[in-house]
């Protein structure tokens, strides 16, 4: 995660620190990059306007929950029946290994929605299982269990893909 500047306003710092993870989480919910970007922007704009952020006990979890709520309130997303977008990259891969990025993206796309969300929150959002549970309104045990299943499937999918490409 990119470090934040100490002199930066708190909301801007959070945007820089968690913007990418929030976007990934939003994509894992709605499947569309443009709608996900819109959700992240709207959440931050609302935070700036209302300034309710100061009262949040856990700012990080609050941000992810806000993005999720925004998307769930969107009727188009709730009624969506479209597959996840595959034409736009989700990650900046290490060593510009875009083949590995595509491999990971496809593996994530193959996961069920609830498992993909837990992985995005825990790995790239840096949330604990307690925080993941709070964001998704599930128990911490459920979050941990979904994560274990997701990790197993993810690794199998990626290894399978690597073997097939070799």
């Amino acid at each position, binding site marked *: 995660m990119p470090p934040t500047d100490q002199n930066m306003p708190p909301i801007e710092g959070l945007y820089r620190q968690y913007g*990418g*993870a*929030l976007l990934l989480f939003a994509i894992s919910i709605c499947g569309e990059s443009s709608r996900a*970007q819109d959700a992240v*922007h709207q959440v931050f704009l609302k935070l700036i306007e209302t300034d309710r952020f100061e009262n949040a006990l856990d700012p990080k979890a609050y941000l992810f929950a806000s993005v999720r709520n925004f998307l769930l309130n969107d009727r188009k997303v709730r009624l969506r029946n479209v597959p996840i977008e595959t034409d736009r990259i*989700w*990650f900046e*891969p290490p060593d510009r290994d875009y083949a590995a990025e595509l491999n990971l993206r496809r593996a994530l796309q193959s996961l069920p929605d609830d498992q993909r969300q837990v992985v995005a929150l825990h790995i*790239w959002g840096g949330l604990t299982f307690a925080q993941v549970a709070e964001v998704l309104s599930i128990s911490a045990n459920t979050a941990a269990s979904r994560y274990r299943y997701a990790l197993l499937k993810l690794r199998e999918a990626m290894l399978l893909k690597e073997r097939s490409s070799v």
Partner: protein
Amino acid sequence: MSNADDKQFERYLRNFRPINPEPRPLHIKTHSVSARRRSALAVSAVACLAVVALAFIVLSHGQGNESEQSASRPYSDADAFSRSNDAKRVELPTIALTKLALDNHQAFDKFMTDKTQSQFPPMNTEHSALRVLAMQ
């Protein structure tokens, strides 16, 4: 699968950094046609008001100058006589009349007589109404 493998796989995954959101496009506010029409109307109304106000100021200033000039100009007897000849048209300001009355009483009397006579019907003609009435 061992826990160590899981940790290693997690580390591998964390090497992939999620891309940041793209900058939000700036929406430059363009005025709608009706808004532009409203602002044009407002501008033209203000311009009209300004023109009317300017005209009023210029006219009132001009009149003030005229009366000031006539009041400040020293009133001579010649003036009074020349004016008394066409007293119907010449309207002396009160200040000038007062000055004339103080400085030259005869000229003032003549001016006032001319002015008074000019306001009555002419008595010069033989069959004027006043002359006929006087004879009766």
